[in-house]
């Protein structure tokens, strides 16, 4: 009897991610959701630029590799041209919260019926650990060796809080994957984000607080702990917007 196997929506190739990176977990969660919702074959993924650029090799569905930060714009086009397909983007913070901020904000404002999986690990991973817009105050990176100085570099961008100010988006939630309980919770959120699209509700974004042991200069275990100790206090987990739930409350 098979008790544990790879989700069907995940290709049978080795991932290139560093040991301890949480990309693998999130890939798996997305693939499990695609399996469970029975949307394989009509799902189209949009890969970013960054560590997960090669996501197009890992998801067993049609994939488009977008220019840096432009995944929500590409997803908009794909979804509007093929409204029956399920379209998701998978983007890191360097992609979604920096060069792609405009695309992120405006696709949310337009309430495009797409699903955005946003991996926030507070650093530029692929290019070697430079400070990202999401890097924490005081965080040591390659380009902030004395820690992020907010007088010089300003403050981190809180995407969920920022987008929650818009009337457009349907669903915004921040989760993490640093322990089993959180992984299960993250899967619930990701599934809801896909279900919302199937139900035609509009723009759903799940921000996943992730670890980058390599560029944080930590062991995988220490990195998962750092999420609890540093990341979550600055980026509190939870639902930031749920328009359908708000509407229900209004009726009652």
């Amino acid at each position, binding site marked *: 009897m098979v008790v544990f196997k790879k989700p069907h929506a995940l290709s049978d190739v080795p991932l290139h991610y560093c040991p301890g990176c949480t990309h693998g977990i999130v890939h798996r969660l997305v693939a499990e959701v695609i399996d469970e919702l029975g949307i*394989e*074959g009509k799902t189209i993924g949009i*890969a970013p630029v960054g560590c997960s*650029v*090669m996501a*197009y*090799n890992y998801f*067993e*569905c*049609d*994939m*488009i*590799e977008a220019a840096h930060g432009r995944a929500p714009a590409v997803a908009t086009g794909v979804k509007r041209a093929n409204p029956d397909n399920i379209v998701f983007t998978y983007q890191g913070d360097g992609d979604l919260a920096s060069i792609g901020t405009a695309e992120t904000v405006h696709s949310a404002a337009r309430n495009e019926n797409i699903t955005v999986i946003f991996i926030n690990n507070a650093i530029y991973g692929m290019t070697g650990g430079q400070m990202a817009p999401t890097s924490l105050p005081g965080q040591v990176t390659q380009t902030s060796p004395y820690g992020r100085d907010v007088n010089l570099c300003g403050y981190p961008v809180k995407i969920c809080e920022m987008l929650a100010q818009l009337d457009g988006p349907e669903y915004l939630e921040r989760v993490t994957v640093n322990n089993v309980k959180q992984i299960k919770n993250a899967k619930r959120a990701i599934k809801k984000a896909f279900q919302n699209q199937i139900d035609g509700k509009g723009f759903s974004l799940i921000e996943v607080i992730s670890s980058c042991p390599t560029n944080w200069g930590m062991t995988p275990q220490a990195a998962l702990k750092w999420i609890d100790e540093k990341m979550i206090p600055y980026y509190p987990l939870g639902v930031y917007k749920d328009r359908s739930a708000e509407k229900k409350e209004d009726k009652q």
Partner: protein
Amino acid sequence: MERKRNIINSLSLVPEELEQFNFARYEKYAEIERTEARAEEYRMEDAEICVAAFGIASRVSRNAVDAAREMGIKVGLIRPITLWPFPVDPFKRSLSTVKKYISVELNMGQMIEDVRLATECRRPVTLCNRAGGMIPTPEQVLEAIKAAANGGEQ
């Protein structure tokens, strides 16, 4: 999924594959260079001085060439219609009669390098230009032609 999945991307991370891709692209560029280069040649038959100019500068230069021809100076105009691919052939052919080239441009001199490459630096090429949105008068170009004809201004 029953069918083979589609992946649309523009990056190729396998060197062996990327090299073949580069070769294929350059073959295409070479074909474009062979078939798409266009230029107009004006009064070039016996020209000893060649004015090279495109766009607005070429219309100004045409008047200057006519004025210089009336003075008996053997001057013609090559007007590239495509800047890439650069029309190398008219410049190569012109080498049989032309002794000097003048590149008339509305910038600090960008096409002058293409003229030098097309003529393989076998003749002097000078610049007659205005910049920032200013436009040379036919008189200014005529002065440059006269200077070239008088053997000055290398």
